[in-house]
């Protein structure tokens, strides 16, 4: 088993933390893992991404050519990473703020309205774990109990009281993620092409 993924969005959305939770979860299940952040000037409002590789063997390169899964949380990241999904791979995105949806037809595309759902529930901080829940529904590489153990490991003790809410968010994320319908290429009506009066 080897899963190479990138999570990309705005700083402040919990992108790096989400990768960290997944990395810890994978370790709980005795997998090898690398967590490689974009670091530096990225801060709240800027772009941030993290590459996480989970494998049952020693991981050679922490840098990937293409990704098995790309999770995109803003338009800039969509523009940058849609082309980096390997053919047959998975692209997951939150529809909030996406003006130009992905157009590739050789990959599986999933949408999750986590931003909207978190706003409705008044739980903005559960955004990243909700996305994580959606991802794990599509790619159940780690068991929920290991995710919860990983979450606990990645959080400081003072934040452990939020564990139940995060578990609920993970479960809810798994419910609301949707496979985008495969759109067969639709030719425009002939009159648009000026072929028919």
């Amino acid at each position, binding site marked *: 088993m080897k899963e190479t993924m990138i999570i990309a969005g705005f700083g402040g959305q919990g992108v790096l933390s989400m990768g*960290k939770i997944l990395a810890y979860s994978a*370790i709980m299940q005795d997998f090898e893992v*690398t967590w490689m952040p974009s670091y530096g000037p990225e801060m709240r409002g800027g772009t941030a991404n993290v590459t996480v590789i989970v494998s049952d063997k020693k991981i*050679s*390169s*922490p840098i990937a050519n293409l990704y098995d899964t790309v999770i995109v949380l803003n338009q800039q990241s969509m523009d940058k990473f849609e082309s980096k999904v390997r053919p047959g791979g998975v692209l997951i995105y939150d529809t909030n703020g996406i003006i130009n949806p992905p157009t590739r037809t050789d990959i599986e595309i999933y949408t999750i309205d986590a931003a909207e759902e978190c706003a409705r529930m008044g739980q903005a901080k559960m955004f990243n774990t909700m996305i994580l829940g959606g991802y794990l529904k599509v790619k159940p590489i780690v068991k929920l*109990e290991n995710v919860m153990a990983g979450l606990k490991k990645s959080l400081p003790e003072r934040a452990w009281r939020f564990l139940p809410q995060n578990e609920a968010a993970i479960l809810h994320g798994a419910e609301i993620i949707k496979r985008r319908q495969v759109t067969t290429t639709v030719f425009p009506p002939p009159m648009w092409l000026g072929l028919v009066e």
Partner: protein
Amino acid sequence: MAEKDVRLMKGNEVIAYAAVHCGCDGYFGYPITPQSEVMETLMELRPWESTGMVVLQAESEIASINMVYGGAATGKKIMTSSSSPGVSLMSEGLSYIAACELPCLVVNCQRGGPGLGTIQPSQGDYLQACKGGGHGDYHLIVLAPSSVQEMYDFVGLSFDLAFKHRNPVMLLADGAIGQMMEKVVFSEQQPRLTDEQVAEQQKAWAATGKGQRANSNVVTSLYLNPEQLEMLNNRLQEKYSRIKAEETRYEEFMCDDAEYVLVAFGSSARICSAVVEQAREEGIKLGLLRPITLWPFPAKPLQDMAERGVKGFMSVEMNAGQMVEDVRMAVEGKAAVEHYGRTGGVIFTPDEVLEALKNNLIK
């Protein structure tokens, strides 16, 4: 569910843990991205309350290397860490420390240069680390870790080598290894040596107070008599020959039947091991030689490979071509030697390296 004792940490963080665990006596540093987590983690660990290790933020890199100089002169286990521009500021001090034959550890978590450059990873300080930086005929022992575990393990190893040869050691990492998180296994806590143990073990040279000894130990790099300074230089050169003979370290990956060999260190070596796997799938007989010590450089295995009939070598570095000079010297024109690199903080992908190999070497 019972929690397993596993740790997932950044390379920079484990440097701090390793320092405490190996019984380091003092850390003096000044923050700079991408290595700031070293001192940050040390401050969180508060080792002055457990092992008694001193952790001090100096007012500059120049101050921190001179604090290292002073601390090391007393025979203690002393270290600092910085990133490229900060290490440039330390170069004068490193030359003095090497001249005085003092053991210490300097971690360089390299970033893109020249100048203030960028905070993204680079390997642009290879020549500075291996061929000088400071003035005069001196060498640092330079180790290049390529995983978070090695970042941890090489701290203790660096101190062992530093004290064995009474020579400063540089751990040459980069922003990628420093910022990346991987699994790490810790070693047992080593006790710090007591003042009495240090005075006894380093009595031949350390400035620990004369006590009952017949002679005072003087730590200096100033020799106004040319013959005396030449004697020091001769002694240093003998020591460097000994280090070359005893401490050269490297790792080979799929080199036995290789027709082409990549040479890469640190995070580049990790990427190159994936390149080897990819190339083998395509039927290209590719191997990887990873120098673990950059100085002394593992010239012999490369020489042997060239004589055995390896057709070509490609030195893959995150710089404009630095280690490639050492590869060329080792190969002595017996096989083609090319370089592939990216600069400015850009990290290459395995695909890019494989394509460069095909375009530049295999043809």
